[in-house]
């Protein structure tokens, strides 16, 4: 279980101090939780704080009761935190198989590595030996990024806008990927998303706006409120 206790994050800008996150308190134990909210509301920052990329200005983070607040990205990864970037990273020279192996933490057979790529709708043999360089489209990189998270199979998997840059066909596939993960996961998946169809796969939806949790509850309940409210509707259509 993930527990966030009074998490705040403040940055210094030209206009002075700016609070990105204000006293966030959350417990996440469900299989699939979606975090949504307007752009700039603090969702990605929250995911980066959980994964250790950013350090909170104040507050505590616990994973299965252990305080991980001061742990590095590497230490958190070793304890079972995975993070899929919104903008996947390119690597000259490293192949898809290299990255899948690193994610799995062991050398996989080609068949094993291909299984993870097939899960995200990629024709595995066409991709397995390709470099993660500029020759791959943003959508392809995104799916490879998700395959890496599946290969890790950790207790907490964070996805920052997995739908960004993915075409409609791939998006339908993406929904299926999360539905399958939802069934199989031994832990929690946290998806940051604006897409109603992705939000519908969640057990619970948390709305983060202006650095605060403004709503939190069962999927149907929160989604119904959002769809009934014009400003919240905008949140769902912002990136569609």
């Amino acid at each position: 279980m993930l527990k966030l206790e009074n998490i705040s994050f403040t940055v210094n800008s030209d206009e002075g101090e700016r609070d990105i996150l204000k006293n966030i308190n959350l417990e996440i134990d469900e299989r699939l939780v979606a975090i949504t909210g307007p752009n700039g509301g603090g969702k990605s920052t929250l995911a980066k704080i959980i994964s250790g990329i950013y350090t909170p200005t104040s507050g505590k983070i616990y994973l299965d009761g252990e305080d991980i607040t001061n742990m590095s990205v590497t230490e958190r990864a070793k304890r079972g935190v995975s993070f899929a970037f919104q903008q996947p990273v390119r690597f000259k020279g490293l192949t898809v198989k290299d990255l899948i192996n690193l994610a799995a933490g062991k050398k996989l057979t080609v068949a094993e590595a291909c299984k993870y790529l097939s899960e995200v709708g990629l024709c595995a043999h066409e991709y397995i030996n390709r470099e993660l360089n500029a020759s791959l489209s943003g959508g392809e990189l995104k799916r490879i990024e998700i395959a890496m998270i599946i290969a890790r199979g950790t207790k907490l998997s964070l996805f920052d806008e997995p739908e960004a840059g993915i075409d409609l066909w791939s998006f339908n596939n993406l929904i299926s990927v999360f539905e399958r993960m939802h069934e199989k996961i031994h832990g929690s998946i946290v998806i940051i998303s604006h897409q109603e169809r992705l939000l519908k796969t969640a057990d619970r939806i948390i709305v983060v706006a202006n650095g605060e949790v403004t709503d939190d509850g069962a999927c149907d309940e929160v989604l119904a409120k959002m769809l009934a409210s014009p400003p919240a509707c905008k949140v769902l259509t912002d990136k569609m």
Partner: protein
Amino acid sequence: MNTTEKMLLEEIADLHKVPEGAYNIRANGRLDSRSTTANIDIVTKTDKPGIDIIIAPNTKNESVHIPVIISESGLTDLVYNDFYVGENADVTIIAGCGIHNCGDQESGHDGIHSFHLAKNARVRYVEKHVGDGDGNGKNVMNPTTVIELAEGARLEMQTTQIRGIDSTVRVTNATLDKDASLVIRESLMTHGEQYAKTDFTVDLNGENAGADVVSRSVARDKSRQLFISKINGNTKCSGHTECDAIIMDGASVSAVPELTANHIDASLIHEAAIGKIAGEQLIKLMTLGLSEAEAEEQIINGFLK
């Protein structure tokens, strides 16, 4: 050969035992062993140090190993190796030099290789340079490669130098005839106060000749690198040269690509990029459980692969 020499041989030419096919192993300036085949002859030069490797026309699926080992401190070995590859031959040539210098004196190897590929011949050439030793003597290598490709010939050249060479000046000059193609992939890493200079010159003289010259390098510590690549398009042809370098610590890298088109249908491109390892690359690998040092190593190994 002693254990150190055998280890060097394994590293530069992947040789665990006597290779199959033709080979010429040179150790400390002298012939160590040699074997020829019905299609590949190796002849000692009489006017200067070195060998002629003569590959018969239509030779297919054969290989030649010509590694050089230097384990005597203070030895500078100059050798001329000339390859004559017959029409329609298709072979692999594995070269390389390993220096183990435990003394205080400079050890060096200046290998001057010339490739003469006849019509439609194809060669895959792999060259690896490695240095080690715990003495104060410097390891110096200055390879020169001269390439002449006749009509339709193709040379794929892969060169690697990733450790232990204190100073190197690597010169490659190529001339290509009609429909000939040249592919060069260079991987280079320098440490400490090492210096490496690469100097490619390619003349595309025949119609539809093509050259693709790519160098990937990593400069660490206080090392210095200079990459020069000149492609001259003298007819309808295509040429691409690329220098991609990762710079670390207090190193210095210069890239000087130069294209000259002497014909309206010469299509020439150059790319050069020098930069440090991107922070997001390190963080991505750290989110997979690697430490920062392990992530850096993976990125560099992949880049130079």
